């Protein structure tokens, strides 16, 4: 008796399993196809790009800082422009001037028309020593159009965190408290005119002026 009641329910269950299996297979195929196409899109984009692309491009964090003129500054003010920026500090004798010199060469490799739609920024993580006036003195040396930004530690930390960057102050006991080094990420970040974070460059990649400039031209053209 109990067996008879058992079989039909088993059949129904078996029937369900088939549907479930088929549904799973279809879902899996769709999912694999989706990821493959996404991966293909990423590969295609990466082949065209010199920098490490972010596909899909994510929203570039809209940092809120102070510019070298002492005015409040947000990334979103630069919609319509390609933005290239990095983190650093002005007392940096090697890495930061190298990056900024590279930025200058990249920027000046662009046509005058393109330059009007590109803004280079340098965000100082050393707000203790880098006042807006310090940056105003320092940044234009690399190009008159470049803009230095800083802010209070909280706002700087929000910006570094959002872009995966980090920094730390290295004090030496017995030294003047104003004499210290700063270890920091030395990447460059590329934001497209819609405010999307498009690509990232490591420190060494920036030596290739023409390749970075070509990426910027491509982003300008596709927007």
């Amino acid at each position: 008796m109990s067996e008879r009641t058992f079989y039909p329910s088993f059949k129904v269950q078996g029937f369900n399993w088939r549907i479930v299996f088929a549904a799973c297979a279809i879902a899996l195929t769709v999912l694999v196809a989706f990821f493959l196409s996404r991966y293909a899109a990423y590969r295609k984009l990466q082949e065209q790009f010199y920098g490490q692309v972010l596909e899909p491009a994510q929203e570039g964090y809209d940092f809120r800082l102070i510019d070298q003129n002492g005015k409040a500054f947000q990334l979103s003010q630069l919609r319509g422009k390609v933005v290239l920026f990095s983190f650093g500090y002005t007392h940096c004798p090697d890495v930061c001037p190298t990056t900024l010199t590279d930025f200058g060469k990249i920027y000046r490799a662009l046509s005058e028309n393109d330059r009007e739609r590109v803004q280079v920024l340098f965000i100082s993580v050393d707000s203790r020593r880098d006042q807006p006036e310090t940056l105003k003195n320092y940044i234009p040396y690399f190009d008159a159009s470049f803009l230095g930004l800083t802010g209070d530690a909280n706002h700087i930390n929000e910006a570094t965190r959002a872009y995966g960057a980090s920094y730390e102050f290295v004090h030496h006991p017995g030294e003047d408290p104003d004499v210290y080094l700063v270890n920091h990420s030395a990447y460059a970040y590329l934001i497209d005119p819609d405010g999307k974070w498009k690509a990232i460059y490591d420190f060494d990649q920036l030596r290739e002026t023409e390749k970075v400039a070509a990426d910027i031209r491509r982003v300008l053209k596709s927007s």
Partner: protein
Amino acid sequence: MRVKTLFIVVLCAGLLPIASAEPASVQVTNAWIREVPPAATDTAAYMKIRNLSQTPLQLVGGSSTIARKVEPMVTTKQTRGGHEVLGMETVTGLTIPGRGTLELKPGGDHLMMMGLLSRPKEGDQVKLTLKFSPGDQQADLQIPVSKEPPK
């Protein structure tokens, strides 16, 4: 009295380099000092140093008329959450193997010129004395100031 003191000082100044240092057997090429951007307080010197002897040498520092201190530094790389963080550290010396070459370059090993006493401009020549161990070997150089590495 004053003349005598002056005479002794001049004599000592003349004798010191002869008494303590010997020229290092190195060949320096591609040397340049980074022009200091306004507001910056330190800069760096870069070059290729070839050790012409069989004995390994240590570049332990140097001296210059434009900086209080000249120190050998290395660039450190650490990884934080998958991202690289660059830093600098003073080291006691940078090794140049026998018959080998040490390259000081941006973002790598370099000589940091700390506490600038003057701010030479691109095209200027700066006197820099490199100090090596073992012993008290040195090399006197005249290095051009530039915004970029020489071509």
